[in-house]
């Protein structure tokens, strides 16, 4: 089968598998969440009935009132007594909002209300998202040299074989990232935020760092939060650094699977080096590999004799 036909087949296979995965997720979510939702609904009905019973309020006016309250609440405007002081659009919160916009996390706890705000968000996002990605890539390229290539060479020198060295290093990096960017911040959040448990903190960290950003948990939105601007800025920094580490993990994994031949097996694009770092030594040199599969998407340049220690040269030992 020629390579074009093969890639189409692979794609349809992937789509099918993806659909099955979604169906599976749907079934599980449905079976877990639905009973809880039904119970909550029953509670709400009881609450409304109770309220209506003991007061002179008619059902219609209560409905009206509730609809208005809920519409306002959707945009983050709360009618409760102790939330009149803090605004959702003071400078720190607006910056937090702008940050969720450009990192594509998008919690949605505050959303632009005005039309101009919406139009501005569109333009701001279209420019800011690629900009942020560029910054992340640049930072990760620098950090990669420090955190990945150095330690791998160290591991090699201490006697490990090249391929297991990369696997060991990846596992170590993974453990480090999970410890520092998931478990530790989760503990901090559960201590600082009043109503969050440790699992809630962990859930929040994960949902934010994968840029899913459901928005059911957002730090710093409880009324009466102390040092709110500082807290929000700290969360922003955490998000940015965490995203960088996730991207670093992803890139390391991609390079590792390149090395182990996974990406050429799945006919995926190989980990391309950007041509920005021409003015300094390249982080990864392309080597003259003879892979088992004849079809390769990216061209490999032969290795320079005087090159720096790089990830792919590890294969040659």
């Amino acid at each position: 089968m020629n390579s074009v036909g093969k890639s189409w087949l692979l794609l349809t296979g992937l789509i099918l598998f993806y659909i099955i995965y979604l169906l599976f997720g749907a079934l599980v979510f449905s079976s877990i969440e639905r009973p809880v939702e039904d119970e909550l609904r029953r509670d709400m009905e009881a609450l409304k009935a109770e309220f209506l019973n003991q007061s002179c309020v008619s059902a219609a006016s209560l409905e009206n009132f509730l609809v208005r309250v809920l519409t306002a609440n959707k945009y983050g405007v709360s009618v409760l007594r102790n939330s009149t002081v803090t605004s959702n659009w003071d400078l720190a919160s607006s910056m937090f909002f702008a940050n969720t916009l450009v990192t594509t996390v998008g919690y949605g706890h505050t959303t632009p209300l005005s039309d101009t705000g919406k139009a501005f968000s569109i333009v701001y996002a279209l420019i800011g998202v690629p900009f942020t990605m560029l910054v992340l890539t640049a930072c990760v390229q620098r950090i990669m040299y420090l955190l990945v290539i150095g330690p791998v060479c160290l591991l090699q020198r201490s006697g490990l074989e090249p391929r297991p060295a990369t696997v060991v290093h990846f596992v170590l990096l993974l453990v480090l990232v999970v410890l520092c960017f998931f478990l530790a911040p989760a503990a901090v959040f559960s201590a600082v935020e009043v109503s969050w448990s440790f699992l809630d903190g962990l859930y929040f960290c994960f949902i934010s760092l994968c840029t899913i950003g459901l928005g059911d948990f957002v730090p710093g939105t409880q009324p009466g939060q102390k040092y709110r601007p500082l807290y929000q800025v700290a969360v922003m920094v955490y998000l940015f650094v965490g995203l960088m580490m996730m991207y670093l993990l992803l890139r390391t994994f991609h390079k590792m699977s390149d090395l182990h031949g996974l990406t050429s097996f799945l006919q995926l694009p190989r980990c391309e080096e950007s041509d920005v770092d021409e003015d300094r030594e390249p982080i990864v040199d392309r080597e003259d590999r003879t892979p088992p599969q004849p079809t390769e998407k990216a061209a490999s340049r032969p290795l320079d004799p005087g090159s720096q220690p790089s990830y792919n040269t590890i294969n040659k030992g």
Partner: protein
Amino acid sequence: MRWKTVSAIFFLVVLYLIIGATVFKALEQPHESSQKLAILTEKLEFLAMHACVNSSELEDLVKQVVSAVRAGVNPSGNLSNQTSLWDLSSSFFFAGTVITTIGFGNISPHTEGGRIFCIIYALLGIPLFGFLLAGVGDQLGTIFGKGIAKVEKMIVKWKVSQTKIRVISTLLFILFGCLIFVALPAVIFKHIEGWSTLESIYFVVITLTTIGFGDFVAGEKETLEYLDYYKPVVWFWILVGLAYFAAVLSMIGDWFRVISKKTKEEVGEFRAHAAEWTANVSAEFKETRRRLSVDIYDKFQRAASIKRKLSSELGINASINQEMTPGKRTLSANLCEDRETYPTLTRNGSLYLNGLSPDYADRREIAIIENLK
């Protein structure tokens, strides 16, 4: 990338965020305050109208209602015939928003089990979706590339330059893609969901960049009856649209890189010019020194020959009175073509004396002799 470039870009991003923050604040805060005022007046009116309700009871009710809405249950209206938020098609949609990292948030898991499962599900699903996106983007790219190749063939007949063709094809790509993936769906959403034009475009952009606020979600209005295939078609549109947007965003990123490269080139050119200028100046300076030293050499030669003539006429032996200063030694070595005896002192085919400059040499001596060939 150099550290300087990275930190420069980082400061740019921070600046961009601050600018965005001030603009958002200026746009939204007045609106927010007016909303707050409106809802507070509502509350006071309600309390005034219904005297048997005290405000703490009302607060309680509102709190419970708000948290119920967060959980996805809308307490207003008749609760019994509302469709569940966790029926199969909505759960399917939710699973899709988790894996694509859009994460609308209008539905979110509330049980501990649901949350743990969500984490594990996303851990496996996001890379899976990444592969899928890569594959779809690839196919999209080849399909579009073939179309562009045909168009380029046509344009080449008009004898336009290569860069112009590139620019035209990029523009065509953006235009076509915007039409299919942004404009058309926006019109459809506007028609079906009843949003305004701006809101539809806003929804499309926020969804396809995977930001996904969740204030507008297609297919979630309870008052509308949707066709059965509406949600799956929306999901399919999200998939292909995401691939298109990823391509556009990476193209914008490439432009940034090209611009920074061009700036670097220009800076490099400027530096090269400066270096050239300095080299020119120092070469001229050296040339002047050379001419000066040759001039002195000529004069010395003439003086020496006159002295020799005089001494031969007067019968005095020239070699006793004259000291062999380094300069004269250089001179005699060069003249006698004895350069090979002083190999360490030769450079560029002429004799140098350990960097002696005209300042050190005697007026009668020559410190540097250049290119005596």
